[in-house]
């Protein structure tokens, strides 16, 4: 559906479009972080593209890859009724240096999505005026959707109550009751799996 758009992008940017894929009718292109904003600006303004809507912007963590994080946008044109996905890869193995240009000046809706990607993955968006955490709280350490964030690590804002029956699951529940889906690994601060 957006094949023509992919070709147009390749014609315009040449080798700067690192890859163009199509799967199950979903087209995607991969660009370098340096071209991130320019490609999006083109996609918004070009008459054959007219992507008025930034549907989503998110991060993805591939711990085995280098660069480690992908930043992905989903675009939609309200007039042309076509979609495109744009990806780029940033960050070294430790998750540092994950920086890409902010799209806030291209679409206002990028504001909170970029804050979310920052909060969850630690990807920073250069030029974002207010890059604070949005889902977690300012006291939160680390980025919870990184694959190396310990799955059982919680960072309570309120100190947990002390005493028998409080530290474990809870007083009247048996070990097999109440939480059939979870790992049942949540401990209070101080227990081994929580730091």
């Amino acid at each position: 559906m957006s094949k023509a758009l992919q070709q147009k992008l390749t014609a315009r940017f040449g080798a700067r479009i690192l890859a163009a894929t199509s799967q199950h009718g979903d087209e995607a292109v991969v660009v370098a972080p340096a071209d991130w904003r320019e490609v999006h600006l083109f996609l918004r303004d070009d008459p054959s593209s007219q992507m008025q809507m930034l549907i989503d912007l998110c991060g993805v963590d591939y711990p085995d890859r280098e660069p480690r994080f992908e930043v992905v946008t989903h675009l939609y044109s309200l007039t042309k009724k076509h979609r495109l996905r744009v990806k780029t890869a940033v960050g070294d193995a430790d998750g540092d240096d994950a920086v890409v240009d902010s799209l806030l000046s291209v679409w206002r809706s990028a504001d909170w999505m970029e804050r979310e990607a920052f909060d969850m993955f630690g990807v920073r968006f250069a030029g974002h005026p207010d890059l604070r955490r949005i889902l977690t709280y300012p006291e939160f350490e680390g980025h919870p959707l990184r694959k190396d964030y310990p799955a059982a690590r919680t960072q309570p804002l309120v100190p947990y109550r002390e005493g028998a029956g409080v530290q474990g699951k809870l007083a009247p529940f048996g070990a097999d009751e109440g939480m059939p889906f979870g790992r049942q690994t949540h401990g209070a601060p101080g227990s081994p799996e929580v730091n």
Partner: protein
Amino acid sequence: MGDLTRTHVVEGSEQGFATTRFQDLLGWARKYSLFQYPFVTACCGMEFMSFASPRFDMARFGAEAPRFSPRQADLLWVVGTISQRQAPVLRRVWEQMTEPKWVLAFGTCASCGGFYDNYATVAGIDKIIPVDVYVPGCPPRPEAVIDGLLLLQDKIATGDRTPGIIKPRVDPKQGQLVTLRTPADLEESHAALEAKVKRLGG
């Protein structure tokens, strides 16, 4: 006042009167005048609305009036998932309530975190505030919630502060509940009925 176990009705007087202990009278009065603060955060709220509405009708149990100031409430319903970020708010609401106060954990999330076993969720509100009655279920059935409220009322009347839990109900096996009737079945039961009528009448 028939509910009070230690109440004695004194016979013989014209008006009739009863003696009881002050604590029992107080418990009896409290259990039927619960002013509740619904702290509703997630999908369990739907079940709570249905419980509060006429079909299940919590007003029957004297727990009708919601107060949207914790200072006027003595029963805190924690309905839904509590995230770490929300925990200080819940704690503050509970602290603002006047004594005596009770807490009911509505649903699996409030009871123990449910399947939200992750960085974002408090695995059970009893990690931050004491709970009197747990009603697990995702969401709990209205019957379970009614059971929970009645259990809480019992606890209030007897002054029992140990936590209680409403066990999830087990569905009866299919077929025990519904028996499909065939015409032959009907004939049979007709015949049995007639025989019975004959026996009784004859």
